[in-house]
């Protein structure tokens, strides 16, 4: 027992020093040298100022921008405190939230998209993401928003649609994962298009 205790005490200190401090420090140094942008959080700068990260939604609400998926964080799109919504598949609160989100989308998009009904809203548009900061929307949800963005910005619809294609992340290696449109990058591209 005493021998185990002595060995354990030494091992705990040695393993923490090596696996908890030395190796992470060396690894961080390597990461900062080899992949500095990714290691710092894939931040996007415009004119030297950080405007966000390509890996975090930021809660677009203005009509000239594409909007992201709903977020359950407090406040919404909090990239400092991620969370699920945790509403079960039969929870009445989920039904209510989905109804309200769908109604808000119809109200916002119908003026630009008169034929739109609830059956035309893709499911990712009315459900919270798992992280609360999902940077992507489905192509279907981007297409749904395209007429509004084009009209508000006085851009040809074809231009907006081609920007959607440019900012769609394909599957990794061509087959892993699903397609997603990166909303921050798409909105930045729109602003750049118009020289803002």
């Amino acid at each position: 027992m005493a021998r185990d205790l002595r060995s354990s005490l030494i091992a705990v200190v040695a393993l923490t020093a090596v696996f908890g401090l030395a190796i992470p420090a060396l690894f961080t140094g390597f990461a900062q040298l080899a992949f500095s942008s990714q290691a710092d959080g894939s931040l996007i700068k415009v004119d030297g100022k950080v405007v966000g990260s390509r890996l975090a939604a930021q809660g677009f609400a203005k009509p000239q921008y594409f909007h992201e998926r709903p977020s359950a964080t407090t406040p919404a799109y909090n990239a400092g405190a991620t969370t699920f919504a945790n509403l079960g598949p039969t929870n009445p609160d989920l039904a209510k939230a989905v109804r309200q989100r769908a109604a808000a989308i119809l109200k916002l998009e119908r003026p630009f998209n008169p034929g739109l009904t609830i059956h035309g809203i893709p499911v990712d548009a009315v459900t919270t993401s798992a992280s609360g900061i999902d940077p992507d929307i489905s192509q279907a949800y981007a297409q749904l928003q395209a007429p509004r963005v084009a009209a508000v910005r006085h851009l040809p619809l074809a231009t907006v649609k081609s920007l959607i294609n440019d900012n769609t992340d394909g599957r990794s290696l061509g087959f892993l994962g699903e397609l997603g449109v990166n909303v921050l990058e798409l909105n930045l591209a729109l602003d750049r298009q118009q020289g803002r």
Partner: protein
Amino acid sequence: MGQGIGQIVVYAAVLIALAYPLGLYMARVYLTPAFGGRFLGSIERGFYSILRTDPRKEQSWKGYAKSVLVFSIVFFGLLYAIQRLQAHLFLNPDHLPGVPSHIALNTTASFITNTNWQYYGGEYTMSYLTQMAGLAVQQFVSAAVGMAVLAAVVRGFARRSTSELGNFWVDLYRSMVYILLPLTLILGVILVSQGVPQTFSGHATARTLEGVTQTIARGPVALMIAIKQLGTNGGGFYNSNSAVPFENPNGLTNFLEEIAILLIPAAQVFMFGKMVLARRHAWMVFAAMFAVFAIGVGIAYPAEQHGSQVLRASGVNITQGQGQSGGNMSDKEVRFGIANTALWGTITTDASNGSVNGGHDAFTAFGGAIPLVNIFFGEVIFGGVGSGLYGMFFYIVIAVFIAGLMVGRTPEYLGKKIEAREIKYAAVGALFVPTMVLTMAAVSVVTNLGLASVFNPGAHGFTEALYAYTSQANNNGSAFAGYGATNFSAEFGTVALLLGRFAPLLAALALAGAFAGKKTAPVSAGTFRTDGPTFVVLLVGVIILTAGLMVFPALTLGPIVEGLSH
């Protein structure tokens, strides 16, 4: 669904292709006396000399168990202290306060036991020091403890007429340095290159395009994520775990993390085959595990693609295709879609990993029942690193025993007679945890203290409580995450975590000690063969009959009633 099924099939193929050679390598790590060569060997000998332990001196099962327990208790103290004192320590750029005592207690037990159940949100609760030098160290160490115990247990089957099972310190060191560390560094580098942060700078602040100030949490994430997956830990840096883009940015990282979740547990089956010279038998054990995995994903994927009752009734478009994944996208991420979230939910609970890339609480009733049942099986469908296979031995011994009863002959396993003592250890190992889970879940739904944690109404709320104690006691760590932290749930959970880890661990070592002392008998015509498909069917049957039937009544109260309601 073809694209999704294709991804799952590719996953299974790559997993087997990597696990087989890794298993053979791991057998060499544990079997070769001077494995490291001259340079690495001298570092290894240096470690033993500062511990003042003789690596050539082997231990009985009791001596081995004592070393495991003392080592775990000492680490328990350090990890608890770091959390409580983090406000006064270094590497805390965001000035987080100390962790509250009951959360720290539960978290310490959770990480010591390779569970990584999280009653906290990492990015706003734990300092970089706590994440890196506290929690992530345990992700290496608790994994290595499980791997070491497995090595000892396998020696018990391989050896005869001895009481010696190996040296804990040697097995611990080799698991960490020769197996976990190189794999972690490789995966860590790939993750950083894809966008997982690794920095000591505090949170970033952005001014968004609409002029709002946004706080972006980051830190030394990548290395922790690599070991969290490889060591079947599952405890993430961020609250939403592997769903957060900073832990899992794209389809490639998702695929590699999914591989990492099952890689070592799958490889250990082949390691076992080589160490006991029974490769065909090992393939049959692998086949049994793989069959249960395939059934699980085969149910979970269509269930999630079919969508939840609420979404189906809402009228929105949940059809796959036309630019979307469709299905139950509640608490799921667009870049993973349905197939990869269902696959992840299945394998993270086949393994005792418990990391999630989508919210299990929002899974459909039947989609969410698969993770629950997987965990309830005792984390033996590949299971935790080490603990998965040593847990499977309980079922194997019971299966062989039942086969022996059927032909009226003393059963043998790997040439050794199974007698009363072995059956007792195996029964304790297989039944202790499920019994405890059902008891604790029952207590937590009939007391006001327990009910305070339940988040969703109705049958789903019951499933949350059942899942919470199933996950903690079986050392998985995934959650129906609406289930909340109270002082009661944190402390009650601590009991589940510790008993659920150490009771089966001790039963496995005792079983191995009993087997090691036996002579081997030659195979005869009456020996039940464990290297054919009959054995696979029997083993899967025994798992379903023991654990499956125990959980079934509880399932009818939770997922089944929910799945059949509108």
